[in-house]
C-alpha cells in the first residue's frame, strides 16, 4: 500500500524525483568523493596519450628499477620503464574493460529481464529458468576456458565478461517490471494498442531506471576486478599491453626488492573499486529511499 502511494507520487513528479535524488546524493560525502575520484581517473585515462610523462615502451635498462623520485614520480620497473606512465596506460585498459563489458551486460540483462517480466507466463518461466541454470555455472572458470580456446583478445574479454555479468541485472529488472506492469499507465498503453516492444522500451525500462543505474554502478567494479584477476593470472591482457592486474602481477615478482611496483598499481585499483562501491551505495540510498531505510 505504502509502496503504491510512493509509486504514484513518483509518476506525477518524474523530474523532481531525479532532482531530489541528486540532492540526496550530494549530501552523501563518501559518494561524492567517490564520484570525483572516479571522474579524475577517467579524465587522466582519456588524456594519457597526451599527458603521459614518458613513452609507454620506453626502456632504460641502465636505469633499471628505481624508487619514486622527482623524475619518475612512481619510480621505474626492472626494465627502467616509468611506472606512472605504465599505470596511466593500464588505467585506460582496465577502465575500458570495466565500462564496455558492463555496457554489454546491461544491454543483455535489461532486455532479458524486461521481456521476461512483461510477457510473463510460460515465456517468463522459461527465460528465468535459463537464468537460474546459468547461475549455477562456474563463470570465472568458463572465461578462462574461453580465453584459452579463442586467444586473448580484448574484444573477447569484453564479450565474455559482459556475457556472464548480466544475470543479476536480468533478475532485478524482471522483479521491478513485475511490480509496475500492473499499474494503470501500462494498462493504458496496452489498451492504446502499443506493441510489446514499444511498451518495454518507452514505458517499462524508463520506470525501472533507478535500480538499473544503481546496479550498473555496482557491476563496473566487479567487472574491473574480474579482468584484473584474469590478467594477474596471465590469462587476460597480454604484453605489451598492460592493465592494473598485469602490472600488479609484475609487481609481485619483484616485490621483495621493489615493493612500490606492487603497491602503486594495487593502490590505484583499490581506490577505483572503493570509489565505485561508495558511489553505488550512495546512488542506492538516493534513488531508492525504501531500500536504505534501515
Amino acid at each position: 500500500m505504502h509502496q503504491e502511494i510512493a509509486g504514484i507520487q513518483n509518476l506525477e513528479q518524474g523530474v523532481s524525483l531525479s532532482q531530489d535524488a541528486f540532492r540526496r546524493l550530494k549530501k552523501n560525502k563518501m559518494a561524492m568523493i567517490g564520484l570525483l575520484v572516479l571522474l579524475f581517473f577517467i579524465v587522466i585515462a582519456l588524456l594519457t596519450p597526451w599527458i603521459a610523462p614518458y613513452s609507454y615502451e620506453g626502456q632504460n635498462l641502465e636505469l633499471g628499477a628505481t624508487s619514486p623520485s622527482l623524475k619518475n614520480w612512481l619510480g621505474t620497473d626492472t626494465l627502467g620503464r616509468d611506472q606512472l606512465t605504465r599505470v596511466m596506460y593500464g588505467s585506460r585498459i582496465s577502465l575500458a574493460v570495466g565500462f564496455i563489458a558492463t555496457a554489454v551486460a546491461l544491454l543483455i540483462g535489461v532486455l532479458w529481464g524486461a521481456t521476461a517480466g512483461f510477457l510473463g507466463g510460460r515465456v517468463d518461466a522459461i527465460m528465468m529458468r535459463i537464468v537460474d541454470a546459468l547461475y549455477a555455472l562456474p563463470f570465472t572458470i568458463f572465461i578462462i576456458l574461453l580465453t584459452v580456446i579463442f586467444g586473448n583478445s580484448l574484444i573477447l574479454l569484453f564479450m565474455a565478461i559482459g556475457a556472464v555479468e548480466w544475470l543479476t541485472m536480468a533478475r532485478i529488472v524482471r522483479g521491478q517490471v513485475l511490480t509496475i506492469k500492473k499499474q494503470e499507465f501500462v494498462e493504458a498503453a496496452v489498451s492504446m494498442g502499443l506493441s510489446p516492444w514499444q511498451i518495454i522500451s518507452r514505458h517499462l525500462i524508463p520506470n525501472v531506471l533507478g535500480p538499473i543505474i544503481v546496479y550498473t554502478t555496482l557491476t563496473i567494479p566487479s567487472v574491473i576486478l574480474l579482468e584484473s584477476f584474469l590478467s594477474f593470472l596471465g590469462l587476460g591482457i597480454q604484453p605489451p599491453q598492460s592493465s592494473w592486474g598485469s602490472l600488479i602481477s609484475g609487481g609481485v615478482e619483484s616485490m621483495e626488492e621493489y615493493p612500490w611496483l606492487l603497491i602503486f598499481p594495487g593502490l590505484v585499483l583499490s581506490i577505483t573499486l572503493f570509489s565505485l562501491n561508495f558511489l553505488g551505495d550512495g546512488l542506492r540510498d538516493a534513488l531508492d529511499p525504501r531500500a536504505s531505510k534501515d
Partner: protein
Amino acid sequence: MYLFIIRRILQSIPVLLLVTAVTFFMVHAAPGGPFSQERNVPPEVIKRLNQRYHLDEPMWQQFFSYVGNLLKGDFGPSFKYPSHTVNDLIVAGFPATFELAFYATIFAVLIGLIAGVIASLKPNTIQDYIPMSSAMLGICLPSFVLGPLLLLVFGIWLQWLPVAGWGQIPGDKILPSITLGASYAAYIARISRGGMLEVLSQDYIRTARAKGLSTARIVFVHALRGGITPVISFLGPAIAGLLAGSFVVETIFQIPGLGRFYVQAAFNRDYTMIMGCTIFFAFLIVVFNLLSDVILVWLNPRLRQQVGGGH
C-alpha cells in the same frame, strides 16, 4: 522435504549435462590441436596420438564416449602428462584446495558474523561504522593485492609467518586462508548486518526485549536464526567464487592445489585437464548450491511448508 531435495537433484542434472556439453564442444572447436605446440613431431606419431585419444573419430562419438567415461568417474588421460590421468591430478590437487577453501570459509563466517552482529546492534554509531568500513576495505582490496601485501609484511619484513608452501612449515596455512577469506568475511559482515537489522525490528524480538532478556540471549537464541538466512543463501554461490579465488591464492603462495593445476593446464593447453577440472568445479558448485538451498528450507518453517505442501 525429501520431495524437494529429489526435485532439486533432478534439476541439477541438466545443468551438469549442459556444462559438460558446452565445455566439450568449446574445447574441440579450439583452433590448433592439442599437440600443435610440439613442432618436430613426425606425422605418424601425431596419427598415433590422435588414435590414442580418439581424436580421429566423429565429434558426437567422442562426446558420448567422454560422457560415458565421466559417468564411470573417469576423466581420461592428461594430454600434457601422458603418464598421469586427470583423475590423478584432481586427487592430488583437490585436498589442498578443499582444505584452503574450508579454512577460508571458517575465517569468513566467524569474522563476518561477529562484525555484522556487532554492527547491527547499534546501527549508525561508531560501533557500526568501524566494522562496516573495514568490510568495505575487505571488498575493495582484491585477493591478488591483499595476498602479496600480507606476504610482504608478515612473511618478508616481520618474518612472523612462512611465505610459501602448504603443510610443510607450521603456520604456512594462515596467510593463504586469510587472503582467500577476507573479501567473503566482508560480504558476510554486510549481509548479516542487514539480515540482523531486519530481524531485530520484528515484533517477536520486541517481545523478547520486553520480557527483559539479555542482549546476548536475544541475539543468540532468537535473532541469529533468522538473521543468518541471507548469509546461508550467499554461502552456496560464494563457494564458486571461493574456488575461483583459490587460483590466485594458490599461485601467490605456491600451494600445490587444483586451482594452480588448472591455471597451469590453461597455459599448457592441456585440454582434457581443463575439461575435467571445469566439469569437476561445476559439479562442486551445483552440490554446494543444493546444500545451501536445502539448509535454507530446513531453517525456515514457512518455506518448508511451501515446498512440502505445494506439490
